[in-house]
């Protein structure tokens, strides 16, 4: 397809129907009286045997004049044709996030983007075509194809269901694919993060529209001793104040219902204490532009308790630990078979699943460390710990044993170390002198034990969390070597688990069920995945605009050649033919 330099020249096209009108008026049937129709008898008979109505016929010269006029009009438009040797590959980055499906069917940004893509593909040719879906990560929708018609199958894979659109990563992938020589088209619903696009031939087309949208931005269910506490957080992510209805149900029972009136970008939190026995809670918002973020589900969380065996000979210390374990609320009432053995023996505890917490012996005269303490803050044991201001008594001569990973140290003196044995059990060593320390009198002490029990609980078979955000990893420790995952649409997938932990393939929100283990020891758990992406649900910033171009004016001139001389030549040839026919007919038209 050619590009048009002067679109206003289309006005000249009015000369074409004018010419036809002139010829029509000139060549309509003129009345001619004749002496008799006797001499036209043959024509009359054939007419009566066939059609009665005959449209006016134009002479050949009319068509030549029409062609000349059309050529001149086309020449006035200033058409430029793309040169074959200047075509580049086209890489289209498609925003695969949920916001591209906002709005009624047929008017969604995805529909607009497809329309625009088709227009661009009709306008000019490219050397090849490649589609990249930009969801939480970039995803190639298929191989590079030489013809745009072959993109249809790939476009059907563009589902617009992701909780985020990492367009930067997709652009980086596009650059890596073609080393920057491709024309990159970004089809999304929002403006680029920065006004300056990344270097390269990038054309950013936003086809979004601001719409009214309420969304769940947070949903959690935490177990407590008396029951569960459920949290739902709803935000108005529209460009203006709006109303919506929040309704929370458990089965047929309506737990909560309220009409919400929220200003733009305001949130509303609902905290519901529910019995631990209550099943899945489902929260729902009324219809708005984006349906995918109007539902959230919270399944009953699994209470993970750890079977702890106490083998501490020091009675004071044993009492301290027992009270601390009770304070965490994570200790199971039974201890057989033990999952955690707290001991003062330098031998490893027995039991295939038994982790160990070893209180290393401390001398009578131990050192009182006041800091500074060095912590591996990424380790599960140090989550939430702050040690400044405490006194930690420990053996000043203690050294880190080979294979042990220091977690907390006072200078070069290890205070807490861990080692993973060959059965993947964790052995924690604690250098701790209670009589020289104040740490057991601070909240850091039960926090340390809570971290230990929680760490151990997470290593139990099953899911560490039962209510998750879409996009978060869902680790799972199955019982046995296989697991069966049931999706929200009730389809099932068998998963092989050669290693101890796998990541469940969760792509859409809903309530899933995962089952593993033998018949006699089956582990069945449900978990909910909710679309909780405030940034993606926010339609107030959706916009229709364009940024960047595929080349400068000079590049475009280089890539597009004018066809004006050819049109003029054709028009001249037509004029000569016109002249010849006029001369041949001696002026009769």
């Amino acid at each position, binding site marked *: 397809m050619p590009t048009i330099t002067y679109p206003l020249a289309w006005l000249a096209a009015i000369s074409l129907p004018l010419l036809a009108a002139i010829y029509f008026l000139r060549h309509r*049937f003129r009345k001619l009286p*004749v*002496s008799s129709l006797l*001499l036209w*008898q043959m*024509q*009359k008979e054939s007419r009566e045997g066939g059609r009665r109505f*005959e449209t006016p*016929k134009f002479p050949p010269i009319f068509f030549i004049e029409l062609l000349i006029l059309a050529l001149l009009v086309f020449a006035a438009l200033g058409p430029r044709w793309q040169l074959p040797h200047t075509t580049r590959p086209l890489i289209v980055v498609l925003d695969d996030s949920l916001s591209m499906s906002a709005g009624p069917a047929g008017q969604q940004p995805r529909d607009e983007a497809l329309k625009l893509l088709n227009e661009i593909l009709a306008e000019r040719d490219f050397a090849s075509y490649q589609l990249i879906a930009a969801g939480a990560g970039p995803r190639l929708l298929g191989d590079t194809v030489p013809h745009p018609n072959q993109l249809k199958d790939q476009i059907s894979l563009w589902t617009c269901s992701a909780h985020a659109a990492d367009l930067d990563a997709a652009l980086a992938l596009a650059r890596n694919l073609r080393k920057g020589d491709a024309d990159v088209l970004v089809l999304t619903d929002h403006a680029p993060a920065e006004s300056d696009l990344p270097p390269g031939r990038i054309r950013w087309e936003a086809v979004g529209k601001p719409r009214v949208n309420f969304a769940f931005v947070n949903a959690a269910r935490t177990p407590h001793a008396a029951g569960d506490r459920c949290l739902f957080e709803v935000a108005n992510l529209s460009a203006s104040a709006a109303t919506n209805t929040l309704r929370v149900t458990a089965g047929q029972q309506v737990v909560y219902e309220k009409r919400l009136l929220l200003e733009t970008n305001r949130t509303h939190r609902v905290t519901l204490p529910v019995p631990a026995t209550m099943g899945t809670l489902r929260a729902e918002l009324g219809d708005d532009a984006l349906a995918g973020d109007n539902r959230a589900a919270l399944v009953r969380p699994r209470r993970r308790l750890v079977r702890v065996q106490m083998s501490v000979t020091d009675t004071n210390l044993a009492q301290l630990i027992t009270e601390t374990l009770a304070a965490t609320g994570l200790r199971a009432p039974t201890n057989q078979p033990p999952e955690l053995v707290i001991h003062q023996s330098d031998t490893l505890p027995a039991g295939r699943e038994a982790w160990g917490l070893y209180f290393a012996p401390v001398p009578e005269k131990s050192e009182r460390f006041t800091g500074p303490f060095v912590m591996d803050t990424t380790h599960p044991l140090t989550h939430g710990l702050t040690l400044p201001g405490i006194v930690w008594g420990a053996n000043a001569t203690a050294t880190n044993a080979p294979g042990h990973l220091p977690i907390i140290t006072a200078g070069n003196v290890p205070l807490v170390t861990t080692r993973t044995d060959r059965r993947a059990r964790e052995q924690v060593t604690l250098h701790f002198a209670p009589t020289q320390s104040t740490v057991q009198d601070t909240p850091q002490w039960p926090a340390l034990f809570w971290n230990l029990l929680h760490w151990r609980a997470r290593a139990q078979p099953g899911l560490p969390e039962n209510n998750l955000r879409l996009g978060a990893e869902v680790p799972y420790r199955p019982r046995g070597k296989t697991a069966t995952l049931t999706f929200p649409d009730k389809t099932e997938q068998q998963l092989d688990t050669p290693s101890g932990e796998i990541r469940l393939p969760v792509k859409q929100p809903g309530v899933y069920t995962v089952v593993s283990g033998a018949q006699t020891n089956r582990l069945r758990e449900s978990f909910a995945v909710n679309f909780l992406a405030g940034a993606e649900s926010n339609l107030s910033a959706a916009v229709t605009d364009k940024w960047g171009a595929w080349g400068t004016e000079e590049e475009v001139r280089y890539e597009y050649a004018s066809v004006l001389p050819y049109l003029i030549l054709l028009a001249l040839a037509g004029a000569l033919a016109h002249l010849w026919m006029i001369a041949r007919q001696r002026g009769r038209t």
Partner: protein
Amino acid sequence: MKAPLRQSLIDGEQVGLRYALCLPNSPMSGVRGERLGRRAGSSVDFQDYREYQPGDDLRHIDWNAYARSNQLIVKLHREEVQPHLDLILDTSASMNLPDTDKPAALHQLAALLATAAANARCSQALWMTGEGFQRVRNDTQPPGAWGELPMGGARSFEEAHGLLPPRLRRQGMRVIISDLLWPGDPLPTLRKLSEGAASLHVIQLLARTDATAPEPGNVQLQDHETGETLSIYIDASIRQTYRDTLRSLQQSWHNACKQTGAQLTTLIAEDLGQSLSALEEIQLLEPA
């Protein structure tokens, strides 16, 4: 009568003064006149002898022959008759085609022939089509005294002849002026018109637009006689077909004339002044 047509009569009369009707060689009949008739009469030209029969004029007995043969022999002389011209005019609507010289040419030609007949001392009668054939008023007078020739009759020549044929004088000259554009076989009509005629001349008077097909283009043809229309796009092939059809029609008239002993000629109304020689060629006119 429209002034131009009256002028055509006067013009035709003036042209006709230069011509005389070319009388046929065959003996004619008619009222007593100045031309020798085919029967015995009272002229000075000897014709034949025959035996006397009672009642014969005794003045015609050839006494010399009686002396030689002793038989009463009567001497017969040729009768003297005045030749007669029946001018049969097609005044149907087709002869009154607008924007052509056809009606003017018809008037001019009729006046010319009437004047030429007078120059040849012929009596004349003018017949025109209408609801049958009718005599033109004052047709025995010079053309300037004729009443108007009413043009535009709805009946064609053939229909008018079928309805009421002209009462033509026997052994007279007959001249038909028509465009001959009517359907059907011309032979029956022509045979009736030639019956008892001393001679029959058929003058096909066409307008130039009749003789040549219209220019190419979209045309709605209207039959001036019946009002019937035909919309058609005329191109080279259609024009050729038209010419072929006209030629075929003329050929059929030519054949019919040949069978009836009539003379046929075609004149173009617009070229009438230059085509009077054709009338001499068919021995209808001769210089006076």
